[in-house]
């Protein structure tokens, strides 16, 4: 589904990603871990198409197509979804209106009519229930005044609405208490299928107890320096990242 080859990316001429290779197949869950500043969030933003990042070498192939030249919204229409580490507050746009616009713009891009209002409403309610969200939440301004947990839950709610093929969850566990973590992870697991894939970016093992990865990769200094199964996450939790750094620097 996703094939990243020798990806180099920089922001304001500063190299951040220095040769990433990663392949994600349908039905798989990948975890990307690594110390602060290793390039995890940059990788997520580059895949999603943030303009400030410049790809200087390598390629991002999604479903057999090089998506490097595509705008962020075109990637979204093809089924790429990024759950933000820091979801942006947009005063004046309600959660409902935002997701309605997003869904209908995606449909428009596929040559479909707007979703009938009744169907939309039902879909919104079903997915809100899945994430155990209060209905009142839906009429509030997007992310404005939301707690950390509410923001993340709202991200997964949008993911549930948009049904992406590839979901990248950037530090979705940060700022979540244990109940919210369980609800969010539960939501992700219910959306999981053999046809889609999830990339979880995280510092900590605890989210991976709920969303169990097939593969764990360690990103350090702009490169994937180690890959393994879910047991690698446990090892990192126990021993920290210093041994990896030593291995790399040796």
């Amino acid at each position: 589904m996703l094939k990243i080859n020798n990806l180099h990316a920089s922001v304001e001429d500063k190299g951040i990603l220095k040769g990433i290779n990663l392949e994600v197949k349908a039905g798989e869950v990948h975890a990307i871990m690594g110390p602060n500043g290793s390039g995890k969030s940059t990788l997520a933003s580059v895949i999603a198409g943030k303009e400030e990042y410049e790809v200087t070498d390598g390629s991002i192939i999604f479903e057999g197509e090089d998506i490097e030249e595509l705008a962020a919204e075109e990637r979204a229409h093809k089924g790429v979804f990024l759950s933000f580490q820091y979801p942006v507050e947009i005063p004046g746009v309600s959660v409902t209106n935002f997701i309605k616009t997003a869904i209908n713009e995606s449909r428009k891009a596929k040559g479909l009519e707007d979703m009938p209002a009744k169907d939309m409403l039902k879909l919104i309610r079903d997915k809100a229930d899945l994430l155990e969200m209060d209905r009142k939440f839906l009429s509030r301004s997007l992310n404005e005044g939301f707690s950390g947990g509410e923001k993340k839950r709202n991200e997964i709610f949008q993911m549930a609405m948009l049904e992406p093929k590839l979901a990248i969850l950037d530090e979705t566990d940060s700022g979540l208490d244990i109940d919210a973590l369980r609800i969010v992870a539960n939501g992700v697991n219910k959306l999981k299928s053999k046809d889609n894939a999830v990339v979880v970016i995280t510092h900590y093992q605890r989210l991976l107890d709920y969303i169990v990865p097939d593969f764990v990769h360690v990103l350090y200094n702009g490169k994937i320096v180690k890959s393994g199964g879910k047991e690698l996450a446990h090892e990192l939790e126990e021993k920290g990242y210093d041994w990896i750094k030593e291995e790399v620097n040796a």
Partner: protein
Amino acid sequence: MDLKEKLVSSFLAFENNVDVDTEIHSIRNEAIKTFEEKGFPTKKEEAWKYTSLNKILKEDYSVFSKHESSIDYKDVKKYFIHDIDSYKIIFIDGKYSSYLSETTHDGIDVCLMSAALAKPKYRLVVENYFNKAATKDSLPSLNTAFSQEGAYIHIPKNKLVAKPIQIIHLSTGSEAATLAQPRNLIVVDENSHVQIIERHQSLTDNPVLTNSVTEIFANKRAIVDYYKIQNDNANASLIDNTFIEQKRESVASVHTFAFGGKLTRNNLNFYQNGERINSILKGVTIIGEKQHVDHNTLVHHIEPNCESHQDYKGIFGDSATGVFNGKIIVDKEAQKTNAFQSNNNILVSDKATINSKPQLEIFADDVKCSHGCTIGQLDESAMFYMQSRGIPKKEAKALLMYAFSNNVLSSVKIPELKQRITKIIAKKLGVNIGFDL
């Protein structure tokens, strides 16, 4: 002969034919003298520092329309809020159009300024109110000298006017260039409530300059909601002079939706003559090309325990220029005043300009006054966030701009009007999304 000379000499011929031997006649004579002394305002005056009338005064405007034009309703329907039941006072080239209008004398007077000036039964109201709130500045004086036609609305006490009133001035462009000077008088007595929508619309590309004066009197506990839709074409300019005098416990609000024309200047003045008055001034400006919109507001707090709330949002693209000049005066007697003012702007282009200037003159010592002004660009991180969810850049931009103006729109009390404004905004922003927030 420049426009000023032309106007002054036209007055000589004009005055012999109107209301001779009445008090109005002497008001006119005074007014033309004032205009003759002061002339058109120039950039040398502080209040006109950022708005120059020079260019638009160069046109050879005809002062009195010679033609009688008629228009089919279907051709102008789009300028009406047509999906609601309303009273309508419609003018074509300054002349009343009875077949497009729907006036009434049933318990309330929704009719014409010309009738009010001429007929004895209106004399008392006219003598009490006509030209009593308008200032003696040059442009209102010019309008006063030539006042002939416009809306006359008198709501006696304890009336809740169920239907909004639409005042629409249409210009057909039958003259090469037209100067229009509509004059509206609105008197709302004790405990009454009225909603009014005003629009000026030019139907051709011939230049039109409108110098409009509206006087509104909100008496004790009256509620007046006034909405101005300014979305005219590229050769139409508007100088709107609105004066609102409020008595105790009244609430008056004016929403100004300034979506352009060539040059638009809003002189909006509130005078609080009583206690526990609330004045609300809100505006959304969205312009581009070389359009110019200037909001010049005044709230004069004269007595204690009153409030005023000003909230103006502006979005400026291309080489558009905007001005916000908001003046608040709090007299020494006006203790416990709460006066708030906020002006937020987004510049979408490098060439767009906004000049924002709060002016607070506070002579009382126990008041709460605040003002805030921001000028910024669209939030890039919000753009990426929206795009990452599949909303294309243009639509994302539009949604952000709409959201930015939404807290002004949300206080529009007529749902159909709100929908219409929303549609105009979507069209201005070049998108086809619903924005039903």
